[in-house]
């Protein structure tokens, strides 16, 4: 990193340090350059994931037996052979559930175990408990089931036609599209489809439950939502939540796949531990995980877009068919975010977008980075590409003319503020020279007969906050120990996004102490209760602000203590780089001495900080409000090369400007941009979920479902930060960064399309992601 120590420190340390000479106070750390605080554990293999927890003696191993059909009545389930197999302790079914056989979060429509009917291929029917994992695997082969097959729906449009909707459709409206079409110079209609996406967290789902005193359960779970796991277990076991303790150290990846869908596996092992009074563990096999869990929602959508003669978008309508799978899971919330992001970064006066949450016989689809937003954005980008094609111009022209400006109104009524759409675009142009990039592409294409390049621009605008307003709150528990070290617990879960690192920075910055004094504890429901899941990119904002509040409360007490010791006033006291200053002048007091004194003076050195996002609200009856604390903006230019002999392609470069706000951690945030972008372009290119018409997953292993490897990522990724002061509702003005960059990947689809058309100008404009090599070759020649 090229940030100088002084600059790094300036970002986070209050201005008072100007008053102190460097001889007196050494600046110890470049805090915005702080690397992943878990990095050493990761590279040495010492970090602990679920399957690494030392196993207690007498632990049993659980293995779900899942439905071999997507829709059927169970006529007969024969467990006798399996129950008699060596090592098998017990086989549980719905009838063994001590509480409620129900895990549906938003809507109670998802049984934990199938009872009499199967709704998707992979639905748990029974749980084998054995003395070893292998015994359970061998026993599973002995279970037989007789089924009466029922009709299977895998297509969301078919589900809608049959009235299979999980919730009634929802519409966002702005202006009056019906009357707007008459004023349009150009109107285009079409269809756009996106496939699902497997999360492929490298650590599979799992949980390990131990029975504890008072008929309670302690469970380690690989979950993004410890409270969701706690609540689900309490419900399934029929016990109060205070008898379920959920502990999460970290996840080997989540991406939304462990927001709601970790709960089923946790509930299964908790039930087994509760019934058998023994520790029970499940770390899922990859193919079981892929078969039994839901994925990003496939969407099939229709759009209609109208322009005036100056190519300003006058009206936009879209109908989204969300393939929700067999149960609600988080689908209604995901669907909502599709509506929120249906117009991406564009200011459109007349909007009418409608979404259908369609029940099919796929595993219940769920949260995945972007949470419905990317699906909505793909549709409007398709509409613009379609229009550009028909109008014989570059999509870039249309995109640029329609970017949101300060005060633009979103279809849901929020008035955009701190808008950076144009600023990101302009800086992209300034830094990378879009005309030159396009000219280079054209020059290459003029010379090459077998390979063609394509370029596309992808602007993004992504709202930060849970769209369900009541979820936007968090707590953090801070202990300052008497030796000056600090322990922090928050409701957030570390899953690679760098939360622990940012939380260390927050505590270190508020106290102005060395980051090494701060330790982040596991996420535990007995320390921090009633948490929202680590999701919606908001984890660092919510938990960080709560932590800040907690630290500030302790800091105030410390300043009061120091003012008494120094016979000064609280206002005159500051702590800078572990030194206590009085009116900006060094004193004999430092952090350790102050803490020691405070402890012996019986000052409370612990605090539970609470934070609830201000200003946000949303009225679902009107579909209007101000649901987002702020928006994140950015613009990416994507260049690809298509091999027109073979239909394969390479991504040459992605050059982007991103609105980080006032970035608090360079390497963490850059890592989120690179990782999000690559995950997004994987969704757009090679990641292809395939179910057959019986609802059986064919892309059911890493050999048939391909995610980007080191050779398939862009050869160049250049990231420029938009210089801003950040947003006051972002943690330390550093904006949320988890989900937004995924949507830069959408540009890859359109860049490939442009390359194809450089080879074959009459190639049909198809909007059906992912653009696999198969689809590319067919576009080139069929």
């Amino acid at each position, binding site marked *: 990193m090229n940030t100088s120590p002084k600059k790094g420190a300036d970002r986070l340390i209050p201005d008072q340090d100007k008053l102190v000479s460097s001889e007196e106070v050494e600046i110890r750390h470049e805090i915005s350059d702080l*690397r*992943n605080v*878990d*990095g*050493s554990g*990761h*590279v*040495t*293999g010492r970090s602990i*994931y679920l399957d690494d927890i030392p196993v207690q003696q007498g632990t049993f191993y659980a293995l779900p037996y899942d439905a071999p059909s997507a829709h059927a009545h169970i006529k007969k389930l024969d467990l006798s052979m399996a129950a008699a197999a060596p090592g098998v302790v017990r086989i549980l079914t719905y009838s063994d559930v001590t509480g409620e056989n129900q895990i549906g979060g938003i809507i109670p429509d998802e049984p934990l175990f199938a009872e009499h009917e199967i709704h998707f291929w992979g639905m748990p029917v029974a749980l084998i408990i054995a003395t070893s994992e*292998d015994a359970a*695997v061998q026993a599973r082969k002995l279970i037989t089931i007789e089924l009466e097959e029922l009709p299977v729906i895998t297509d969301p449009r078919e589900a809608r036609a049959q009235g299979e909707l999980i919730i009634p459709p929802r519409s966002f409206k702005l202006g009056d599209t019906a009357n707007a079409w008459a004023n349009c110079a150009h109107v285009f209609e079409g269809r756009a489809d996106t496939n699902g996406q497997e*999360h492929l*967290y*490298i*650590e*599979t789902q799992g949980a390990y439950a131990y029975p504890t005193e008072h008929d309670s359960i302690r469970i380690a779970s690989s979950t993004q939502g410890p409270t969701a796991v706690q609540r689900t277990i309490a419900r399934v076991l029929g016990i109060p939540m205070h008898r379920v303790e959920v502990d999460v150290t*970290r996840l*080997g*990846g*989540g991406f939304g796949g462990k927001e709601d869908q970790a709960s089923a596996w946790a509930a299964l092992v908790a039930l087994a531990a509760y019934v058998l009074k023994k520790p029970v563990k499940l*770390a899922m096999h*990859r193919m079981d995980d892929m078969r039994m869990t839901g994925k990003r929602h496939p969407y099939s959508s229709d759009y209609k877009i109208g322009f005036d003669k100056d190519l300003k978008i006058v009206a936009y309508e879209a109908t989204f068919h969300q393939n929700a799978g067999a149960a609600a899971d988080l689908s209604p919330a995901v669907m909502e975010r599709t509506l929120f992001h249906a117009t991406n970064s564009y200011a459109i006066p007349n909007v009418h977008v409608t979404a259908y949450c369609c029940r099919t016989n796929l595993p219940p689809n769920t949260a995945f980075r972007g949470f419905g937003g990317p699906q909505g954005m793909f549709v409007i980008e398709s509409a613009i590409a379609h229009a550009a094609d028909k109008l014989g111009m570059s999509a870039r022209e249309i995109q640029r003319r329609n970017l949101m400006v300060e005060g633009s109104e979103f279809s849901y009524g929020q008035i955009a503020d701190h808008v950076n759409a144009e600023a990101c675009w302009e800086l992209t142009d300034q830094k990378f020279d879009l005309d030159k990039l396009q000219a280079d592409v054209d020059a290459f294409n003029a010379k090459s*007969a*077998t390979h063609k390049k394509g370029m596309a621009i992808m602007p993004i605008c992504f709202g930060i906050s849970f769209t369900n307003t009541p979820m936007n709150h968090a707590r953090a528990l801070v202990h300052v120990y008497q030796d000056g070290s600090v322990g922090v617990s928050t409701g957030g879960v570390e899953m*690679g*996004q*760098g939360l622990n690192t940012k939380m260390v920075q927050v505590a270190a910055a508020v106290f102005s102490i060395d980051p090494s004094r701060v330790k982040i504890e596991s996420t535990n429901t007995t320390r921090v209760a009633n948490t929202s899941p680590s999701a919606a990119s908001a984890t660092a904002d919510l938990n960080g602000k709560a932590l800040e509040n907690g630290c500030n409360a302790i800091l105030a007490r410390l300043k009061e203590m120091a003012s008494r010791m120094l016979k000064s006033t609280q206002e005159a006291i500051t702590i800078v780089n572990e030194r206590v200053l009085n009116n900006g002048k060094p004193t004999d007091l430092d952090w350790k001495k102050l803490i020691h004194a405070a402890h012996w003076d019986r000052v409370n050195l612990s605090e539970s900080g609470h934070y609830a996002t201000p200003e946000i609200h949303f009225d679902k009856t009107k579909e209007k409000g101000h649901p987002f604390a702020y928006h994140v903006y950015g613009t990416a230019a994507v260049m690809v090369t298509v091999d*027109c002999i073979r*239909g*394969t392609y390479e991504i040459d470069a992605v050059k982007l400007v991103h609105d980080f706000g006032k970035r608090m951690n360079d390497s*963490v945030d*850059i*890592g989120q941009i*690179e*990782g999000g972008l*690559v*995950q997004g372009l994987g969704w757009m290119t*090679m990641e292809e979920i395939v179910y057959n018409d019986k609802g059986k997953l*064919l*892309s059911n*292993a*890493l*050999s*048939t479902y*391909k995610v*980007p*490897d*080191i*050779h*398939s*990522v862009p050869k160049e*990724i250049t990231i420029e930060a938009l210089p801003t002061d950040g947003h006051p509702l972002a943690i330390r003005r550093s904006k949320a960064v988890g989900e937004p960059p995924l949507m830069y990947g959408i540009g890859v689809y359109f860049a490939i399309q442009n390359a194809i058309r450089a080879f074959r100008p009459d190639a049909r404009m198809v909007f059906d992601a992912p653009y*696999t*090599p*198969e689809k590319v*070759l*067919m576009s080139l*020649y*069929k």
Partner: protein
Amino acid sequence: MTRFILNDTLVESTASPGTVVLDIVRYHQQLKGTKIGCREGDCGACTVLVGELNQERVEYKSMTSCLLALANVEGKHVVTVEGLNMEGLSPVQQAMVHASGTQCGFCTPGFVVSLSGCCLSREKITEELAVRAIDGNICRCTGYKSIERAAASVAQQLAQKNTEEPITWSVEKGFLPAYFAGIKERLKTIQGGTEATIDPAILVAGGTDLYVQKHDSMHHAVVRPLANDASLKGIRFEHGECIIGGACTAADLLNSVELNDHLPKLEQHLLLVSSTPIRNMGTLAGNFVNASPIGDLTAMFIALDSTITLSGPAIPGQARNDRSIKLRDLFKGYKQLDKSPDELVTSLRFTLPGKNTRFNFEKVSKRTHLDIASVNTAIRLELDGDTIREAHVSAGGVAPIPKYLAHTSVFLAGKPASPETVHAAIKVMNDEIAPISDARGTADYKRLLLRQLFFAHFLALFPERFTLKELVA
């Protein structure tokens, strides 16, 4: 009992020899740094380094421990991430931390182990080779750019490596723990381990497909390891022929300087085959007898007009009952072979290319690397001026077997190498293939793709004589 050195410790394991090393390491030895991601060699989270005594050297290769039979590490040194840990972070570990090449951290030990292999190899490490070392490791968090930066830093730090004595150098410079220096002598003391073969046993060569297909049963199985059988190894050149042992791995082919001299684009072709750790394990004969309709090596060697030697079981006092057949004749139907269960593919031979020989291999898969082909194809042409004197064309993914395109091959013989010939050959080819729709593509796509790859052969072999425009006209 299987004896091997695990990091710094001699292990004498009584576990079933079919057990995979991953389970031994994690659950018998309680070393939890090696992670389970997929159990089919596709993610690299479980990568270990395996050191083998070869004369006076210990040669290390990265392997995915989920597919590695315990029996195959007899007498070897197995290195997990714990075996690389020192007092502070190693330079490789430090590079990963500094470049922020780790986010959730679950794939990280695999990357660290793979990259650390660069310290042990006798190659001069370039940035390209450092990236190649991790081409079998999947990361879902970082987008790889930070890991590329770490790899570049490792390559730079290894620039001065002594390629004659890499282990000594790496230990002296603090890249590896000191115990590595003593491994060679310790390995000598555990060579010649007994190989108690109990019949009938399942033959395990690289195991890279066997353990994917039969994962649940292999650790109970009686296995006979072939990877250590010296009689099945080696690449020889005799009387204008190349003779390759059946247990040679794809990496052995890649590393054979002489073979690459004869087939100048072989490296480029082999880099399309799987990943580094799988190339270090998977064998030539394994690829053949697995009988996958899209085996890459199979397609290559069919087109090279190779002959294989099948050996029956050794009967004491008698010569082995050997027979030779063309590789293309081994395949009788879907996963049906002209081979009895007790026959071994001991070697393969093909006539070395002459100055009038042209050879090319093409493969397209959803992901260019570490993926199974939608369609692959290879071609060998013997030219007589502008005329094709003899042709051998193979194709995978278009029939139930790795397909020798016999009619197309015959058709090409005696024809000029011209667009007209190619167009006419496509018609012949289309009549002898029968692709089906599956997870790797629709039948229509595979048919189109094979046509395109057939074009690609001619564009690659005769760049001055063909254009894409003419071919697709």
